[in-house]
């Protein structure tokens, strides 16, 4: 009598912890690509008020005439929101699974090699999520505008008004530190999670991820700091 190992039903990819990680990586990649565009667009503030405000208006006209006014921008916003929701939902889902797996903690813990970006993904990510809401309330919805008058559409003036205040700059710089750490580990993780990493390429991927994180940090931070020191008026 031969015994045949029957193929039991295995869950579809998106139900496995690795599949969920891949979805996290994919949604993270969408957000990252958008962030790169966001950062490059922000740099226009260094040119002059007209260039920057017309860039903001351009975003609303994007996709015309195939799409009506602002529709493409809204499409981007929808995709981004979905990516964001997926990213956060899976982060919570996977974190809960991970916590269940290690309920009893060690009396003594010591890290052997894990770097700070790797171990701060969870809390750093939470901080970033809160920052995104703050950021939207600050510049998109205009709910928070301490010490200056928020004018919808006057993007340049809003930015300059906002970052004339050191404590707002401090919040943004701190958030960008968290973002840079998140991007560093996240970018490397995208390669690792999709299996595109190997011992041979690991160093290059890590360095590229680090370079990207630094570029993103400098690009984003240049605006509030530029305003604060008076380089942008």
């Amino acid at each position, binding site marked *: *009598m*031969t*015994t*045949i*190992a*029957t193929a039991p039903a295995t869950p579809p990819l998106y139900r496995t912890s690795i599949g969920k990680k891949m979805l996290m990586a994919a949604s993270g990649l969408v957000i990252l690509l958008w962030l790169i565009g966001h950062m490059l667009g922000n740099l226009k503030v260094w040119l002059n008020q007209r260039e920057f405000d017309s860039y903001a208006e351009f975003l609303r006209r994007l996709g015309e005439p195939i799409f009506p006014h602002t529709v493409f921008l809204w499409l981007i916003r929808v995709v981004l929101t979905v990516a964001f929701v997926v990213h956060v939902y899976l982060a919570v889902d996977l974190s809960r699974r991970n916590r269940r797996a290690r309920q009893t903690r060690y009396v003594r813990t010591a890290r052997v090699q894990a770097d700070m970006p790797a171990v701060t993904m969870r809390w750093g990510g939470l901080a970033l999520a809160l920052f995104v809401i703050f950021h939207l309330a600050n510049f998109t919805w205009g709910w928070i505008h301490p010490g200056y008058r928020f004018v919808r559409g006057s993007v340049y003036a809003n930015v300059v008004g906002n970052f004339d205040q050191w404590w707002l700059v401090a919040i943004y710089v701190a958030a960008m530190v968290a973002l840079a750490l998140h991007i560093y580990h996240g970018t490397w993780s995208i390669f690792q999670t999709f299996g595109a990493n190997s011992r041979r390429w690991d160093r290059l991927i890590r360095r590229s991820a680090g370079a990207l994180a630094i570029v993103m940090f400098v690009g984003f931070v240049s605006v509030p700091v530029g305003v604060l020191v008076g380089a942008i008026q």
Partner: protein
Amino acid sequence: MTVAPEVPSAKPPTAAPHAPPAEAPREAPTRWRVAPADGAALDGHAPSGPITELWDRHRFDMKLINPANRRKNHVIVVGSGLAGAAAAASLGELGYRVSCFCYQDSPRRAHSIAAQGGINAAKNYRNDGDSVYRLFYDTVKGGDYRSREANVYRLAQLSVDIIDQCVAQGVPFAREYGGLLDNRSFGGAQVSRTFYARGQTGQQLLLGAYQALARQIHVGSVTMYSRTEMLDLVVADGAARGIVTRDLVTGEVQSRTADAVILATGGYGNVFHLSTNAKGCNATAIWRAHRRGALLANPCFTQIHPTCIPVAGDYQSKLTLMSESLRNDGRIWVPAKPGDTRSPNEIPEADRDYYLERKYPSFGNLVPRDIASRNAKEVCDEGRGVGPGGRGVYLDFSDAIARLGVEVIKERYGNLFDMYERITGENPYRVPMRIYPAIHYTMGGLWVDYNLMSNLPGLFVLGEANFSDHGANRLGASALMQGLADGYFVIPYTLANYLATAKPPPVGLDHPSFKASESDVAARTGRLLAIGGRRTVDDFHRELGSLVWELCGMSRSAEGLTKLLDQLPSLREEFWTDVTVPGMGAELNQSLEKAGRVADFMELAELLAIDALHREESCGGHFREEFQTPEGEALRDDDHFAYVAGWEWSGEKGSIEPVTSGPLPTPILHKEALRFEHVKFSQRSYK
């Protein structure tokens, strides 16, 4: 094979070449009895005919079991090493209901995993003249003519299938750039027939067998019981019908019935306390089977490995083997004068004694294991040993490093040097290594016939636990071969034949034999826990080990063995009155586990010594100081000792009550005559 002609063991050895003066004091056989010649013959049941066809013919002659009927048979396999895992997996695949037991937390951890060197097979991939017949010939000769020719021939035949099987399982053997399997020459063999997976061949072969076993566990044909130790064999109505086990986590003692019991529980090297065996390796399964009537064969055939890291202190818990290949480039020496405490690099050439090169100019540092070992002991006995306790010799690579460069040495032995440094804290690139022999393998074990069945019907014994294929000395890279041959390719056939022709009627747990075994086990456990003495189990194990190692280790003499036999009963008596075993039976209790094992070692040690005393010759791993050539070589006595010594427990077989005072009941010697029709007797020389 037929029964041995009676040889009165009191008779002095007849004049072999270079025989010592016959004046050597001879023990009158008061410590053992020879089975009467007209009694039941000890017969290996090897079929007769041309040796090349024996196994094929036998396979045809054996009865088969219909696939649909196999699941009606329940088979117990104890041990999950190469032999046990291979047997359990193969029998599960065939459709038998199998229960497999191991004391570790997973079957993957059995001590086969620690084998480093490789596995022999007569593939002749090198085109260097190897063949099944040559492997057979080398193994019989290497075993110093104390193994059964028919078994060894079958082993050599099956070696070829083993490699195929393991490769199919995904065992990552070393390969050449062309993609084909690599081979090396091992242990002085003139052909390259050893397959290897870096220095972890045993691990890879075991994982192959373990994975095959895991597949059967998954489909439900094998039920695995990890952390479960066999504490008794149940013999009901003359056949092996089950075992009694203790769950090492809960302490629960349980009986289990079976239609056949397979023991694959490894060797008894830990009787010496310090050995290269794992800490948990034990002889309890085979010793309890022996107490229930199974013959134990050739226990004095123990193998010593010359290149182990020496003992560092009293706390030493085990010895670690360093691959024998180190002797290819290392030079072995000790200070020329006793008591030289200078550090090795300060001792000038003139004050060093490269004793192997001096005494064996043609083989030098590459003399066989037993010769290298005995010489190390000799120089240490002279007070010239080095390192803690003076039990060690130098293995010096400075010449090789000067000749070949550090890089070459690093490439050849890098991981061994790292391991040495991890353990000793010394850098062998700068300071000579220190090595000393240690017990490594036991050729003796339960007696089995050609079908691997013991004298108890239904009790099969595989791998190191049986005595069968290595004679008095095992060749390097042959242990893995035997374990897998037994498990994959022998037992599936011979077990079927037994079940088809001699399967005993069903038996229940209410059979008195089961009740008796269970209560015996409970009584032993209770007794150990109740002693409440002052000495720990480890303390007794250390004392036992140093006694047996000293008096029945690398070299033995009638005088030393007699001394050992006089001391063992009192040690045992002290154990049973002064050992302390904390805790309870109904819990995880590692002290209790150890105590049970050490108690069995204490009894087994006595039979080991008696066997060594009775075998008045030197052969293989058994070296009697009285029986050597003028050059100090082992002197075999083929006229009187070309037989297998199968020892019978002469005490009450219905009980496993420990022997707590006086010597063991006088063991009874059964002889299985060995005939060598293909490999003719010859004496080796390494001068």
